[in-house]
């Protein structure tokens, strides 16, 4: 796979960098947090992002998208991750758009993908059922009842689940997993918002005799396990890119601080105890960069090692995000643990992002299994 960006990708990255710098610097994130807006993102900003075409990057041109590929959207997320830009883009334009693109029928694609590309709707994927990622053996069930399905079960850590217009539900239909799409206001859905430590929204959702018609089924009945796995890998790769942006920003901010802060009559960056730790972090960051690029481009260039590369990226970046965000706080000293200073945001985001679609250990284990041990 290519480890350097092509022109199109470089252009997207530059545009996203300008956007993040001018429209959504970290102060924007702080503002949204302090406004106590329970949605945890700014609708106006989301509209601007959609107008730039970002919500349609994974969507084919015939449905209003640009089809610029996973690497295209990944480099945007990397830049947005630097400034912790809050938006529904991950759940809507990466996870759910990919599920519908891969599994949906023509009507569903026309309907939903077009509206995702235009930025008119938001979606959320209700998958997880426990405090640790476990995409198989779901306990949520969908029982066929004539031309309908009756859905019962409980979901947790549903990203953007509190406010998304539509939910895609993964449920067991006896012989495998099926996907259903529903309006969030349907009868039988109880949504409890769970404000998270990184000031983003997620939800616990209970389905009690939720009745959906067979036209709400996305893909074949009991036939979606493989598609879910594929979409999860795309999502893992993209969230790794976002996390990698956070890693770089936290490191850059810390490096600047080392060059500015005086103690004992010298810049603290002249102390070897800090220099060597910074150099070690730099080495790890260089490794992360290669993992993210290889994983992002593996989808567009047709690798047969996609799952392993996604797990490599998610595990490696998860681990290094913790290293760098912890060191960043420590090297800032007292101000590092104040709310007034931004650096603590990265420590919090690292923890939540690590849990999205498999934590470090989940992906290490998966990497080993895919390698035959």
């Amino acid at each position, binding site marked *: 796979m290519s480890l350097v960006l092509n022109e199109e990708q470089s252009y997207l990255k530059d545009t996203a960098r300008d956007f993040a710098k001018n429209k959504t610097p970290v102060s924007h994130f702080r503002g949204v947090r302090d406004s106590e807006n329970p949605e945890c993102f700014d609708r106006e900003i989301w509209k601007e992002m959609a107008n730039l075409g970002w919500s349609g990057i994974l969507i084919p041109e015939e449905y209003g998208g640009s089809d610029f590929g996973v690497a295209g959207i990944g480099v945007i997320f990397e830049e947005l991750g630097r400034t912790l830009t809050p938006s529904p883009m991950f759940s809507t334009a990466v996870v759910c758009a990919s599920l519908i693109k891969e599994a949906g029928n023509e009507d569903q694609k026309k309907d939903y993908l077009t509206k995702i590309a235009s930025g008119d709707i938001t979606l959320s994927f209700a998958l997880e059922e426990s405090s640790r990622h476990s995409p198989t053996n779901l306990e949520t069930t969908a029982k066929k009842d004539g031309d309908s399905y009756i859905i019962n079960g409980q979901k947790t850590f549903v990203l953007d689940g509190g406010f998304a217009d539509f939910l895609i539900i993964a449920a067991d239909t006896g012989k495998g997993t099926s996907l259903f799409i529903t309006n969030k206001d349907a009868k039988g859905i109880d949504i409890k918002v769970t404000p998270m430590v990184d000031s983003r929204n997620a939800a616990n959702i209970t389905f009690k005799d939720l009745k959906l018609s067979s036209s709400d089924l996305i893909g074949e009945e009991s036939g979606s396990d493989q598609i879910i796995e594929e979409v999860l890998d795309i999502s893992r790769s993209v969230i790794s890119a976002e996390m990698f942006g956070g890693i770089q920003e936290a490191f850059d901010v810390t490096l600047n601080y080392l060059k500015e802060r005086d103690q004992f009559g010298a810049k603290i960056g002249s102390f070897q105890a800090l*220099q060597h730790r910074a150099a070690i972090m730099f080495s790890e960051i260089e490794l992360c960069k290669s993992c993210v690029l290889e994983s992002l481009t593996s989808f567009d260039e047709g690798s047969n090692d996609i799952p392993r590369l996604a797990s490599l990226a998610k595990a490696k970046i998860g681990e290094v995000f913790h290293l760098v965000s912890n060191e960043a706080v420590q090297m800032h000293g007292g101000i590092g643990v104040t709310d007034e200073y931004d650096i603590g945001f990265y420590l919090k985001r690292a923890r939540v992002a690590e849990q999205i679609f498999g934590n470090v250990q989940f992906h290490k284990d998966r*990497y080993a299994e895919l390698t035959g041990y």
Partner: protein
Amino acid sequence: MLFGGGRKVEFKDPDQKLWMDRMGEKGWTCPTWPKEYGGGGLNFEENKVLQEELMRIKARPALNSFGIWMLGPALLEYGTEEQKMEHIPKIVKGEIRWCQGYSEPGSGSDLASLKTKAEDQGEEYLINGQKVWTSYADECDMIFTLVRTGPLEPKHEGISFLLIDMDQEGVTTKPIKLISGKSPFCETFFDNATAPKENLVGGLNKGWSVAKRLLQFERNMIAGMGFGSAASGSSKKTDAKPTSGLATMAKRYVGEKEDKLNDSGLRNKIIDHDMNSQAFALTLRRAAEESKKSNQGPSAASSIFKYYGTEHNKLRYEIMLEAMGTKALGWDGAEFGPEELAITREWLRTKANSIEGGTSEVQLNVISKRVLELPQ
């Protein structure tokens, strides 16, 4: 592992000689070197194809030597036409084996303080002094050295780069026995040794630039060691199922349960190591792609190679020892397999990886100051 050729070479079998000779004739021991000096004349892409083909047929390395890794590239940059014609074809064909005379007993990390002197005697130089850590000096034919030719100049500006034939009375070598029990390094003594004037490379008192360039080649070489069996960073699409050399070996010693290694702690260490091997291999490849694209020298990423590569290789052997248990702790004798004994010795040998060619701490200093631009 290393096969260096030279006048004193002992071939393990006739095939080894045949393979070296045939590869040398085509210049494929040094595929990217110019054809007029016996090299292969291949470009970046052609060489990639050659290497992939050699790997595919599981070819053993035909020849690898300090001449190929370090002296050749330096001569191509700094040598005169006569020097290139004289020395490079013999490196390509494995006729002459070279060693490196840099460090001295009092000049390790502070290399430029070296004292071995070369005095101008008209037609030739007269050399007196001592070098240390000269790899395989006792098996080599020629030595490239840093010598003091300007005793009154500032320390970096009185050094020259001189090629010396070791087949003379004034040169003696004495192996240094390492903790591994082996002696890959020697002390080399110059006692009124001589070298013709035309063996000075890069100009009188200009040896430090040649030396620094050569050190870069050396660091890249050391960083790349030990990755032959590690997870691949290849861009090639293959149908081969990915495997782990460490895990396959560990399974033999600790067993497996339902395809999983029967020691979860060890398994976790192997996972970390395999992932980092792949990440590192990808980073080596990325640095190559970046420098090819920008047409500039090494990217920022390459500053980490010596540090990361050697620490990673040391860890690899620590993990192997953990997997093998007491089987890895034999020193000698038929009760241990030859491969086991070799791993034990190699484990000890790797401890020098993060010392030779600039210690890990020196590398971290370089990254801090030159790449991160942290204050002095």
